[in-house]
């Protein structure tokens, strides 16, 4: 298959397949829909793998405007993103086969689920800023129905909040884009940045403001302070597999966009040592701490996980903001680890809700006795998120901390690792109680009433795979690590 077709196919196939599911009116029975979705997910997976194995290519689809083409290009970082997206999306998709039984409108859910998959693949393949912006906006639009799926008043309001925050962020970014159109040689992503220094001379402040706006704007999706408030509202109201996908992947789109802007357009050198970098670092650290604190205080499990996402995402952003290869390596590793872990955590929460209907952390006493496999997975990935070796979280946090220490930025050099450590403690504080209460319910627990309610295979298998992945990347990181280090070194 030719290179250009393989990329395009991987984007269009799920989008068209999803649209077909949405448009066709026939009342199918459940099995047929699930079979269809399963086949589509599988084929898309194959298509993505096919796209991943091709060499780095650049395809100009068409000219949107003069000098503004729509370009697809798959580079090392894009491949990484694509790989994470596909794994998480397919596994969460399998999980929803069972989970969605107790929700209505399955067809719509799966339709938009597939379309979003395609758009995310497109986002990873986007070769220039305009293309990325287009996919970014589409992603907000097509993931919106996933958020408001159950259509309660609460869900719709949360969805609106999500929509408005996202649009607001996107327009802040668009504002920066306007400047970039003028001051760059090209908007195509090029490692090292594309600023036209002759034009920039004398307008540095303006461009720094633009950079700041783009960071804050795209940071909205990544739940960065000060525009993080949508995330803990919107993620928990979605059906569990959708929240898993949102928290695992959609937020990473913000990270992707920030990496693209910082390293591929502005260039790390332009931002290093400026107030923008310090602001970015400050925001990231504030978010790390605040997210953990809020998660610690939250009692509803899914909300707690959403706050945890806020906190963990800013680990990634912190690594990016350090603007050195070690920090960036840590960020990318954490991006992978967090995608698997957070997806698994939300799926566990979903499994618990599906089997017992419990949403509150305090009611989870003895849950480990009822659904041991689920809670074991929960425990393993929790350890990963806290950063205990040999899980993936340990490696990534190690690199983040080393990166901070290496950076030599006064203040942040030490403040960074300290905040990361405190936050790790808080992470343990908000995740482990579930395990502890679940397996050690205490003396007053009535073992007679205990009945096993382990969920079905479609739910447990994805969980086990995700948990295993999170451990495997921690135990055998070398291949991945050298791949990531090569990317990071190429960007500085």
């Amino acid at each position: 298959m030719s290179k250009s077709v393989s990329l395009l196919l991987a984007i269009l196939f799920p989008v068209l397949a999803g649209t077909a599911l949405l448009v066709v009116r026939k009342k199918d029975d459940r099995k047929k829909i699930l079979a269809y979705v399963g086949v589509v997910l599988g084929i898309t997976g194959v298509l993505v793998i096919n796209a991943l194995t091709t060499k780095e290519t650049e395809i100009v689809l068409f000219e949107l405007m003069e000098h503004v083409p729509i370009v697809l290009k798959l580079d090392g970082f894009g491949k990484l993103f694509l790989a994470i997206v596909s794994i998480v999306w397919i596994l969460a998709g399998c999980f929803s086969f069972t989970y969605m039984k107790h929700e209505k409108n399955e067809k719509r859910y799966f339709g938009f689920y597939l379309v979003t998959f395609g758009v995310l693949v497109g986002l990873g393949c986007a070769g220039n800023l305009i293309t990325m912006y287009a996919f970014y906006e589409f992603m907000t639009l097509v993931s919106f129905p996933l958020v408001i799926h159950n259509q309660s008043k609460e869900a719709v309001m949360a969805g609106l909040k999500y929509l408005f925050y996202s649009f607001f962020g996107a327009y802040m970014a668009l504002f920066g884009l306007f400047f970039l159109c003028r001051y760059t040689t090209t908007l195509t992503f090029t490692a090292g940045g594309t600023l036209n220094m002759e034009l920039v001379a004398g307008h540095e402040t303006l461009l720094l403001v633009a950079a700041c706006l783009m960071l804050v704007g795209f940071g909205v999706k990544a739940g960065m302070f000060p525009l993080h408030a949508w995330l803990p509202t919107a993620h928990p109201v979605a059906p569990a597999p959708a929240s898993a996908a949102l928290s695992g992947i959609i937020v990473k789109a913000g990270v992707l966009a920030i990496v693209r802007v910082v390293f591929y357009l502005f260039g790390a050198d332009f931002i290093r040592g400026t107030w923008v970098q310090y602001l970015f670092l400050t925001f990231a650290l504030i978010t790390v701490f605040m997210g953990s604190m809020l998660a610690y205080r939250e009692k509803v499990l899914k909300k707690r996980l959403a706050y945890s996402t806020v906190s963990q995402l800013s680990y990634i952003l912190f690594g990016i903001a350090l603007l050195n290869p070690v920090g960036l390596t840590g960020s990318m590793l954490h991006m992978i680890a967090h995608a698997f872990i957070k997806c698994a955590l939300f799926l566990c929460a979903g499994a618990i809700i599906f089997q017992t209907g419990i949403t509150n952390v305090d009611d989870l006493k003895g849950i480990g006795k009822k659904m041991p496999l689920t809670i074991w997975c929960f425990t393993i990935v929790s350890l990963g998120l806290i950063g205990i070796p040999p899980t993936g979280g340990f490696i990534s946090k190690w690199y983040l901390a080393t990166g901070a220490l290496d950076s030599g930025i006064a203040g942040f050099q030490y403040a960074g690792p300290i905040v990361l450590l405190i936050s790790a403690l808080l992470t343990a504080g908000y995740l482990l109680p579930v395990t502890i209460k679940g397996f050690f319910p205490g003396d007053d627990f009535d073992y007679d009433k205990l009945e096993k309610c382990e969920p079905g295979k479609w739910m447990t298998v994805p969980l086990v795979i995700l948990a295993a992945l999170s451990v495997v990347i921690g135990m055998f990181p070398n291949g991945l690590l050298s791949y990531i280090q090569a990317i990071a070194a190429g960007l500085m």
Partner: protein
Amino acid sequence: MEILRNFPCFSLILSMCASIISSALNGKWARRLNIFVISAIGVMSACTLYFTFVTNQCYIYKMGRFSAPWGNEIRFGNLEAVMALFFSVIMLLSILGGRKHLFVEVDPFKENLYYVLINLLMSSLLALIYTNDLFTAYVFVEINTISACGLIMIRENGHTLEAATRYMLMSLIGSGLLLFGLCILYDITGHLLMSNIKEQVLLLAQTGQYHIPLVVAIIFMGVGLAIKSALFPFHSWLPDSYGYSTASSAAILSSLVSKGYIFLLIKIFYRVIGFEIIAESRLFNVLFVFGLCGMIFGSLSAIRENDIRRMIAFSSVAQIGYIYMGFGLGTKAGMIASIFHIFSHAATKSMLFIAAVGLTDASGKSKKFIDLTGAGYRNVIAGATFTVGSLSMVGVPLFSGFISKILFAQASVSVGVNKMLPTLIVLAISTILNAIYFMKTVVRIYTPVKSDYPTIPWKQDVSYAVVCICFIICNVVLGMCSEPIVDLIRSGLAMFA
């Protein structure tokens, strides 16, 4: 090939004759004639466009026996032809889209009058596009106003009568100012043909003679046309006249009538006074400031609105603000962006009005948001059309609105910081405000409720569905293949000067 040169003149005369003939026909035949005439004009404009595009030059066509500087002329190049083509397409779609409503809302005995007015309006728009004579332009401005008043009033209820009166008053003030400006210009230059005036104005500018009268003339004409095209703060007539008139009228008024005046203003800038002299007079700065205000205040009023039609009408105020803001940048790039926005807004706004009418039909004719809840499910095609229109307004890539935003931004970064920052900031704010009220509406029409209103399948009104699909295609084409259109505008503007 040579015969194509006559087409602009033919299309003008055809639509004028059609309006006279329509007055003697019954409603049904008047409608058929009208649709035939508009399609014919569309085809002829396309031929004209092909002709000017291939030969790549503009033509002056003598009307009557006298030659310049006494006779009357029409003149056409790429920009005029593409404008005429676009106007006729939007006109046709708007009429077809609101056809069903005409039967209900207009007295059957007066239906042919409606088509008389439409034909008159078309001819006046064509004349504004093609004419090379300032006084002819004035005459057709008046014809345009009168027919537009008729289009508002033909629904014959209290609201529309009031709106039409208001429209009439404001419009007459506008035309009065235009006439003043024109008289002063005639006085100091001694000509009425645009090209002759321009020569004289250049001379005057070089010698420095009559400086103040010239500036006054420019201001009168600028403000007069700004009032007529509803630039903030002269927009108070707009929401009522767009909000209460019948659907086709609203679509035509918002997308075409105001644009005709704006096009005349562009002609005055380029062909009558000359771009440099206008820039020196600092009229652009005034338009710039009011354009920016319009962008913000139009959207704010739209957010407060509780009636879908009036909301769309207020959004027009904001969009007209965009166009004037582009003028205000005072560069060629800004002008191109504004002209592109004329296309983009005309296509989107008529689409929104037509879609809104489909939604209100599915909600017991109520225009209140509370009744519109879930209307997107009851009238699927109207819901989809409205969504596409909203996305375009909000500036989602691949739709036309995004391209105009990018064009405006690109134009603004090449002017000084004094204008660049306000433009970009207001552009961002206004985009967010747009997103607030349009996305709110989209969410509302897709919020499921148990409703007593019946579902309207698309088969019930096939022509409406076709129109909607045409609008969507039109919008996506503008959004995805903007390059040839921008090229056309650029070459057209080059032919202008």
